[in-house]
């Protein structure tokens, strides 16, 4: 019997490997090969992306190649009193054919029509929206993983996404990464991205965060721009030449608000981490790959790849090696200041490629269970904890992607649920399947909630609480988007009530239809204040102010560290604090400049505070 089984499996191995793959069997399942189409001169402007921040408009027009034309200048015009007026000129950058415009002293209180001109032949029109400060609800549509490979449904039209964005009239578009999957032809595929989404991008602020595939590699541990030579890139650094990465970042991020700390990293690669203040929400845009250390050779081998841990008995502390970086000091310094600055902001949102935990257990199915994946932001644990400790000081909500698996997590550092929430959106087209499927049921679940929800330790022993996971079907399902759990996210930020509602939609549904269903576990609404509300904290007392929405700040008297800074809702705030500690309370209308009390503790008395 054993012999029979052995012979059968041996035949199976070779037979399967040689003959059964889809690519060989069926040409239509082949990979997408991006090409740059030839277009007429009048169509050379493919699409345009923009942001407005601190009264500065930055708009980048993406052009088709201008090789056959001599002119390298493009202009930006806006419609003023019914007439088109030129507001900026720029020179087209030939490497990647981008035309970056910058207009300072921009009046963001008006919606304005714009058009990009190239010669007198090509015109591309769109709308610069006014800053939606007067809206209570800011809608941010989130996307990730724009796989183009037909064998995974990447050839299916994106028009359903475009139509749904129009229906909800999203205020901001957020593409968390992997807008481009071809590792050598970013330009060609970026143009396709523009053809697919340009219709909605041209009329609203859009943030595209270049991730690993955009940069031309399967995973990315940027290590401040070093050169990677290991297959899989787990040695850290960039596989593609710096000049390629620069072109990618120019195409996707040159319309971002100026970087807050603009020094280049290795190979002349720039940085784009910054913040965007829009609609009374302060968005931090961070680069969770660029400075991250590569694990190969740094951590003890625990699996078949340097970045994969398959040994469930391993010691999680053994991989939290000294010196391993996640966000890096430059970004942590920025985030530290960002959490303290509440000017024109009622809420804070952090946007990055992926979430701060190992948010999946089964990867790719045939590979079986993976205990931990160092491509996630669960590793290195110290870096992960530092990031969360910083972000929770501003009650920031985390919006991300990359996992190919939609999830909602409430993260913990010292205890479960003592830090921020994250929403990882599903892929537009899902190249690689993952499942959140813990072996043990989660603790402290809500009654009736699936067993995979609740409190868990991820593969790095990080504390996480799951509230939802849009697991794909167990059988691989070819190019069917529905069974591969593809989709997109919508987050509604109510800047008045301070509620955050996460929606997770499958592909090819009309989300305005009453019969349309979201993935199981969505929608979920949390409060902004849930992003830093440890269960162990106790009431100190009620604060009553004489102004609306003041900013408060608490400073630990022993360590002199800021516990948090927050723009409260309304005039009243029930102060909660850690037990056994003494804090200084500061407050102000926009900045917490006034010391209210130098000794605030649990069990303190109610206070009435005047800031007028």
């Amino acid at each position, binding site marked *: 019997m054993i012999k029979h089984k052995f012979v059968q499996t041996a035949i199976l191995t070779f037979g399967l*490997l040689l003959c059964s793959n889809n690519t060989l069997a069926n040409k239509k399942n082949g*990979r997408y090969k991006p090409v740059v189409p030839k277009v007429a001169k009048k169509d050379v402007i493919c699409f345009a992306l923009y942001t407005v921040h601190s009264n500065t408009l930055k708009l980048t027009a993406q052009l088709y190649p201008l090789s056959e034309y001599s002119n390298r200048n493009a202009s930006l015009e806006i419609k003023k009193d019914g007439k088109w007026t030129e507001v900026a000129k720029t020179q087209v950058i030939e490497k990647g054919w981008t035309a970056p415009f910058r207009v300072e002293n921009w009046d963001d209180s008006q919606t304005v029509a714009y058009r990009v001109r190239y010669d007198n032949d090509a015109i591309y029109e769109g709308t610069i929206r006014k800053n939606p400060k007067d809206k209570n609800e800011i809608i941010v549509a989130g996307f990730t993983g724009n796989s183009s490979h037909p064998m995974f449904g990447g050839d299916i039209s994106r028009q359903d996404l475009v139509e749904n964005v129009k229906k909800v009239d999203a205020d901001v578009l957020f593409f968390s990464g992997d807008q481009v999957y071809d*590792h050598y032809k970013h330009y060609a595929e970026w143009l396709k991205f523009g053809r697919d989404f340009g219709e909605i991008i041209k009329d609203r602020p859009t943030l595209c965060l270049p991730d690993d595939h955009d940069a031309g590699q399967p995973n990315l541990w940027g290590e401040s721009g070093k050169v990677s030579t290991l297959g899989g890139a787990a040695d850290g650094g960039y596989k593609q030449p710096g000049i390629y990465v620069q072109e990618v970042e120019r195409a996707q991020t040159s319309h971002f608000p100026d970087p807050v700390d603009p020094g280049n990293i290795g190979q002349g690669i720039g940085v784009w981490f910054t913040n965007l203040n829009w609609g009374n929400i302060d968005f931090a845009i961070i680069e969770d790959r660029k400075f991250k250390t590569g694990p*190969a*050779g740094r951590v003890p081998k625990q699996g078949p*790849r340097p970045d994969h841990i398959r040994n469930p008995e391993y010691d999680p502390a053994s991989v939290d090696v000294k010196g391993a970086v996640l966000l890096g000091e430059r970004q942590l310094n920025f985030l530290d200041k960002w959490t303290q600055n509440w000017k024109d902001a009622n809420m804070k949102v952090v946007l990055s490629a992926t979430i701060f935990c190992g948010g999946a257990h089964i990867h790719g199915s*045939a590979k079986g269970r993976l205990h931990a994946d160092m491509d996630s932001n669960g590793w290195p644990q110290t870096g992960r904890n530092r990031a969360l400790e910083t972000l929770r000081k501003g009650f920031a909500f985390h919006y991300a992607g990359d996992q190919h698996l939609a999830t909602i997590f409430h993260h913990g550092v010292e205890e479960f649920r003592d830090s921020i929430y994250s929403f990882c959106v599903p892929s537009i087209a899902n190249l690689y399947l993952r499942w959140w499927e813990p072996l043990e049921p989660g603790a402290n679940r809500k009654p009736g909630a699936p067993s995979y929800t609740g409190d868990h330790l991820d593969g790095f022993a990080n504390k996480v609480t799951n509230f939802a996971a849009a697991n794909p079907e167990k059988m*691989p399902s070819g190019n069917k988007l529905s069974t591969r759990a593809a989709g997109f996210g919508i987050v509604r930020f109510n800047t008045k009530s301070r509620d955050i509602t996460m929606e997770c939609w499958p592909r090819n549904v009309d989300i305005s239809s009453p019969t349309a269903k979201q993935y199981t576990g969505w929608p979920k609404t949390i409060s902004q204040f849930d992003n830093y509300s440890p269960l162990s904290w106790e009431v100190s007392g009620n604060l009553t102010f004489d102004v609306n929405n003041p900013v408060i700040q608490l400073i630990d008297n022993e360590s002199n560290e800021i516990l948090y800074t927050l723009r409260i809702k309304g005039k009243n705030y029930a102060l909660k604090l850690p037990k056994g500690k003494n804090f200084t309370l500061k407050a102000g209308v926009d900045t917490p400049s006034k010391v209210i009390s130098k000794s605030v503790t649990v069990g303190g008395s109610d206070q009435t505070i005047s800031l007028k």
Partner: protein
Amino acid sequence: MDSVKGSFFSSVAKPLNSLYNSTDKNVTSREKLNFSVEGRGISILRLGTLLCFLAWAWVHFYWEGPYTVLIWNETTYAWAESLGYNWDEIVGTGANDGLFQTLLSQLYWGYLICAIMALSARKEKPLQLIVLCLGTLMMSVLMYAKYLKANSQLPMFVEHGGQMLMSALLASALYFGIKHKVTLTVAIIAFITTFAGHGCYAMGLWPTPSQFYGMTTIILGFEYETTTTFLRIAGILDFIVCVGILIPKTRWYCAIYATAWGLLTALARPVSGMSMELNYFGADQFLHEALTRAPHYLIPLFLVLLFKKQKNADQS
């Protein structure tokens, strides 16, 4: 046990001894020279096969082979199911490995056996020669998986011609002799595919692999433009040696260049990647990269020997 041990070691040691044993009193000096060349040629091929298969055995044992792209599709599952395997057996229950993962984790045995055969194979042992030929089949499957993983780029398959044909070349050399036209043809095909495949990438006929840029930048410190020029020139030279190896007057020089270039490019992997800061200096990550590429310099070296011999014979 002793007899088993003795039999195994003698089967390995005997052909090795024969490589150096040219003192038979009954052979003429010309025959001695032939025998010495034959022995050296065989030893080069044995070494190439041994290093290549040992390194791949290491990859399969310590890391994993690139087979995901082959097994992760519906057709594969449908076929496995038609053979009586259910879903849980194929992919595992979640808590354990499924059939595919279990099978893949054992593949290193195949490479290890071929590595041993590289030492022990003899003309009189047809089974061992068959195993060497199966090594070529096994390597072809591996390279096919790499080819699919690389977006079905033809050069990705072609450039591994040397690695795929290495063990078959050894089997042919043992069975027919190193000068036999079958052996020579296989060696030439292995040579041309290896260098033409790399040349296609280096010249940019297909997107030049980012590692080519990375290694050049790290080792030579070139900027992007200089690196591009350097790689284009290297690519042109790759094609020139592919043609030159077919021309009697130039083939010996081409083989010498190819030996040097094959060795340098194989060494470039560990040289650019290893570091004092890494565990084991990064040897477990990078060293096998140079060894799997042993055919890239040892097949040309074999041709250097062969063509030198023929050159000398022609002159005499």
